[in-house]
Structures are given as C-alpha cells and as structure tokens.
C-alpha cells in the first residue's frame, strides 16, 4: 500500500485540531503528544507490516483510543474542554462524545476553529502564520525556519511562546459567534495567502482543505 504524499502532515493538523477541541485549548501540548504518539506507532508498525488499507482511518482510530485512555486516566487530575466537561465525565457519554468529535463534519469545524484560534490578536502576524504551519500543517521547526529564512532557535522560541499564549485562552475561538470574527477572518485569510505565497502552495493545498467564505 503506497501512502499518499503528505498524508501524515495532512492528518496531523486534523488530529491536533480535534484533540484540542476535546482536551481544551489549555491542553494543546497534550493533544500534540497524543498525535506524536499515533505517528510513532504508525511508523513502528507499518514499516514491518506495511500500511493498512485505510491509513487515515487507522491513524484516527489510534488517536481516538489514545484520547479515551487519557480522558479516563486523567479525569480527576485535569480539566478538559469546558464545553464538553459534562459529557466527558460520565462513562455513558464519554465514548459517544469522542466518537462524534472525530466525525468528518466535526473535524472540519475543528480545523477551522483551530485556525481562527491561532490568529489571536495577541500574536504578531508572523507568529500566527508560524503557529498555523506548525499546528495545522504539521511542519517541523526546521521546515518553518527555512520558510521564514530564520534560525531554528528563534522559530522554536516564537512557536513555544505563541503556544503558551494560545493555551492561556479560556477556550477555542467560537466560529459561530460574531464577536471578533471579521477581525480574525482577515488574519486567517492573510495567513492562507502567505502560506500560498511562501512557496508552500502544494502543502497548503493538501493540508488546508478549506476555502475562505465570501465576505
């Protein structure tokens, strides 16, 4: 089974966005750890046994199961997404809720929501774009550094700082609310424009399957 080009990169953004939706934006790091873990497992297992029939579904199932483990194990130690607290607390609703969040429509919303969240007015334009490239496009620090013609250290610092800023938000950006939408929309569009412009045309087309709404 041949893997489609940039499959991991494409799936990384979707998975982080959905896991952040479930865990809450303050647990962004945890979401990234779960994704990293899913890729490690895929790498270890697929290299010996070959890729499965449906690699995306395999990755989603792995991330979903790992998320359920984390949610069960750390239920008392951590708080998760405030919007989902009640559903995640009860064993009756936990699995169905996570299942629903991993559904195709919910995942698309999650990506969009994450993108708007990255375009926080508390971050500079460069930081917003770097964060989108990192979180939603699965770019490594080195890859972003070369896109920005910058050093590894300074990009790493910028991303770490930006993540901290995002993680202190009370919750993810509400894409259904009108508040601040227009302001962030222009930032999102600018980020998308830069993505295309910075020679990442191919990657952006693969990873960001979203067309900005006509406004």
């Amino acid at each position, binding site marked *: 089974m041949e893997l489609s080009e940039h499959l991991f*990169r494409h799936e990384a953004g979707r998975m982080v966005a959905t896991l952040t939706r479930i865990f809450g934006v303050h647990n962004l790091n945890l979401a990234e750890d779960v994704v990293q873990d899913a890729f*490690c497992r895929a790498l270890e297992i697929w290299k*010996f046994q070959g*890729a499965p029939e449906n690699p995306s579904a395999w990755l989603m199932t792995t991330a979903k199961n790992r998320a359920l483990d984390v949610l069960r194990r750390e239920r008392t130690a951590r708080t998760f997404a405030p919007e989902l607290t009640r559903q995640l607390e009860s064993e009756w609703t936990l699995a169905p809720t996570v299942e629903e969040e991993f559904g195709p429509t919910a995942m698309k919303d999650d990506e969009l929501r994450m993108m708007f969240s990255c375009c926080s007015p508390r971050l500079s334009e460069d930081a917003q774009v770097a964060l989108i490239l990192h979180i939603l496009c699965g770019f*490594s620090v080195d890859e972003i550094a070369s896109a920005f013609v910058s050093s590894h250290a300074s990009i790493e610092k910028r991303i770490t700082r930006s993540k901290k800023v995002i993680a202190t938000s009370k919750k993810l950006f509400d894409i259904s609310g009108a508040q601040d939408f227009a302001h962030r929309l222009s930032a999102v569009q600018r980020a998308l424009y830069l993505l295309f412009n910075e020679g990442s045309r191919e990657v952006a087309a693969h990873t960001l399957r979203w067309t900005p709404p006509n406004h």
Partner: protein
Amino acid sequence: MNEFVFLYRGGQAGRSPEEAQQVMQKWMAWFKELAEKGHVKDRGQPLERSGKLVTGKRKTVTDGPFAEAKDVVGGYTLIVAKDLNEAAELSKGCPILEFDGQVEVRPVMKLNM
C-alpha cells in the same frame, strides 16, 4: 543459503509528521528491495519500547529492558543470505542507520546433523 536475524536498535528521534512519513517510506522501500531479491524470510515484528527485565536467581523484576533508549531493540527481521558478510552488506541499506540507530546482524545457529 543461511538465515540471519536483524535486530534494530535505537534510531527513534522525535520527528515532524512529514519526516516520520519519509522515514517510513524509506523502510518500506528497503524491505521491498530486500524481498524482491529473495532475502526476506520474515519481515518480523515491531516491539514495544517498554517491558520488564527479570534477573538472576532471585528473579528480580525491574522495568526495562534498558535505561537508554538507544539500546532498546525496536524490532527484528529474519533474513536469508549467502553468509554473514552478505547479510551485513544488506543491513547497510537500513534507514535506521541514518537516525543514529544500529542493526545487529546475527546468524541463526544451524543444527548440523
């Protein structure tokens, strides 16, 4: 023809998704090449990085197998080759070598009746 075991050690660095995919595709290409030349008896299995180590007469059980991640065997493959030299030569194509990993090449002992 003789049989050899490749033991893969270390080589597990943190990577971006894109890099992880590239590493995997290298592994797949390497296995494919070996298989096409008839060198793969069994592609083998990946091993979990954690386990237990049971030691000595007192049968002490500790978390293991190794403290150092670079020493942990991450999987094995059963290879068919002419001799040890050829087996070692084949192992040189393993992508793990690009990531500070090692391949241990061990002949499977033969029963000469």
